[in-house]
């Protein structure tokens, strides 16, 4: 430590990195706190009883905290046959995966822990790692129930990643970017700009996505891994106390995560159905922008909570599927429907279903209702300067004579195509 001032920027960097981490941790932990209470209340209502009523006042809203304190006091048991190292580490693997997947997820315009240009992909990739915690827990417990649960989980998650990936690809190719911030910004404006209303195929694929998301986070009716009527408690049979609660935090964290991802991809992200906040967003005042972002953040979290509520509702309404029915749902229904929607949306996007405006075909039907600057946010390829009508992008600086309409989806590739054909004389 040579100079005091030499160390300050580094400390500042570390603090700046810690702040989003702590905030996200709170989203996951407080989210779990709220959702567990919510689940108990909703399940109570669905089963015609009251649910928790006492702790913390009228609605029992401190029930989860009481549960947590009880869990802290429980004895940490480990079976004799367990693999000690893997048994101890498994809950943390599950929790860390569920937590880390939040890092590239934006909460509002620019409110993102780490702005990644392949955010969608990264979220899915990291979320897929949660399964390791479950598998390790199942194996390391040294119990047959746990092992069965883990096997089911492995088979189920690997299968459901296929349709999930296909569903997610559709918004990606419609918007032309994998950057979640850009995808969210493209849906600004009236709710007709939301990607779920983009065309019939995206409307259909949203439900497929939701089904696959429920399956991939192991919620009923797909919770084969912890089917309590068959496998005692499945992969977490042998867990107790705080380690057990880590599994639950991971589960609720990833439920919220897939719901928020669904909101960003399909349901307009942080944009409300009617853009009442857009004057604030477009204002020159930083404080007003901040307010708009805050409103957007609340909006997104509301949508996410709505998704989680639907998941809870589904859980307490539908019976659990058998394992072969789970596989049938994935391979015979979700994959073909997703593939059909993929082809359909692709055709809608590039083919003859488009709408004509100013003598030009617009595949994006919602361009009938122009939102502000849909084309400005395309991964740094075509940053269009509206005032001058010139393409100011640096990476593709040769394009942009100002005459062409820049607003079409896939403009980046089109520009590149033109550029390449310009360069190699019309070749492909």
């Amino acid at each position: 430590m040579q100079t005091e001032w030499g160390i300050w920027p580094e400390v500042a960097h570390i603090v700046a990195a810690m702040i989003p981490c702590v905030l996200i941790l709170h989203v996951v932990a407080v989210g779990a706190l709220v959702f567990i209470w919510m689940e108990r209340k909703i399940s109570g209502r669905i089963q015609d009883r009251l649910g928790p009523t006492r702790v913390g006042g009228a609605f029992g809203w401190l029930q989860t905290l009481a549960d947590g304190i009880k869990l802290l006091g429980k004895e940490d048991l480990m079976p004799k046959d367990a693999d000690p190292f893997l048994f101890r580490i498994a809950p943390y693997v599950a929790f860390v995966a569920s937590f880390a997947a939040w890092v590239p997820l934006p909460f509002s315009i620019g409110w993102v822990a780490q702005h990644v240009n392949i955010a969608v992909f990264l979220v899915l990739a990291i979320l897929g790692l949660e399964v390791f915690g479950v598998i390790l827990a199942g194996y390391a417990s040294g119990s047959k129930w746990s092992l069965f649960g883990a096997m089911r989980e492995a088979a189920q998650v690997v299968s459901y990643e296929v349709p999930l990936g296909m569903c997610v690809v559709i918004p990606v190719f419609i918007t032309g970017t994998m950057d979640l911030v850009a995808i969210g910004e493209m849906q600004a404006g009236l709710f007709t700009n939301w990607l779920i209303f983009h065309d019939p195929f995206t409307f259909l694929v949203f439900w497929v996505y939701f089904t696959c998301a429920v399956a991939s986070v192991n919620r009923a009716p797909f919770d084969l891994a912890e089917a309590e009527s068959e496998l005692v408690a499945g992969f977490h049979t042998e867990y107790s106390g705080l380690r057990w609660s880590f599994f639950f935090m991971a589960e609720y964290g990833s439920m919220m995560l897939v719901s928020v991802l669904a909101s960003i991809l399909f349901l307009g992200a942080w944009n409300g159905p009617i853009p009442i906040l857009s004057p604030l967003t477009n204002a020159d005042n930083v404080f007003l922008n901040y307010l708009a972002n805050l409103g957007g953040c609340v909006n997104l979290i509301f949508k996410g909570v709505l998704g989680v509520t639907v998941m809870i509702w589904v859980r307490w309404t539908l019976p659990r599927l058998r394992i072969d029915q789970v596989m049938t749902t994935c391979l015979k229904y979700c994959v073909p429907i997703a593939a059909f929607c993929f082809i359909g949306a692709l055709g809608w996007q590039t083919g003859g279903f488009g709408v004509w405006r100013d003598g030009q075909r617009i595949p994006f039907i919602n361009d009938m209702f122009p939102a502000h600057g849909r084309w400005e946010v395309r991964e740094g390829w075509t940053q269009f300067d509206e005032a001058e009508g010139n393409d100011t992008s640096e990476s593709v600086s040769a394009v942009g004579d100002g005459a062409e309409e820049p607003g079409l989806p896939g403009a980046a590739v089109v520009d590149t195509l033109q550029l390449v054909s310009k360069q190699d004389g019309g070749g492909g």
Partner: protein
Amino acid sequence: MLLAAINWQTFFFALFALVACVFAAGVVFSSNVVRMAFYLVISLGATAGLFFLAGAEFVGAMQLMIYVGGTLVLLIFGVMLTAQERFVSMKTNGAEWVVSLVVGGAFLVLLVSVAFSVDDWSSPNPNQEKLGVVEANSASTVGAGLVGLRVDKLDLEEGDLQAPGMSGYLFPFVIISIHLLVVLIGAAYMARTKRRASA
């Protein structure tokens, strides 16, 4: 310790590299097959971190998604299907260890000496400071490369772009797609439950 002098790129490289190598060694020297699988997961995950550091973010995410999230889950699935008591930890005898360690050590020495033999490889990029990894932004160039456009070589001459190898990767991409389809069908065919005629 002079914190300000640290090149954070190198620091995180060292962190990820240490994790990757230590857990790769764990794979080799552990005899319990499930722990091997877990160590392999961590090793490959750390390698994905190395890819991110090198600016290949798409490859890193692909590594996490396909390798770690897909292939290794499959591997662990296989491990569990065959994890009977006597197969969980199988010991290798000492002579085999000695031979393979000698061969492997010699190989390692060779590869490391090769790694430092070329000056261009062991001297840092002078533009590193101003380049920054964040600006790599490689996802769309990779995507364009897969459908047959080389947007990273646009500054080349007209003739060079039409030379073999400059036309992107559409053809290999298609071949690999078909290859994967064949692999899927073949694997499903081989792994299916067989009903014996006598039974």
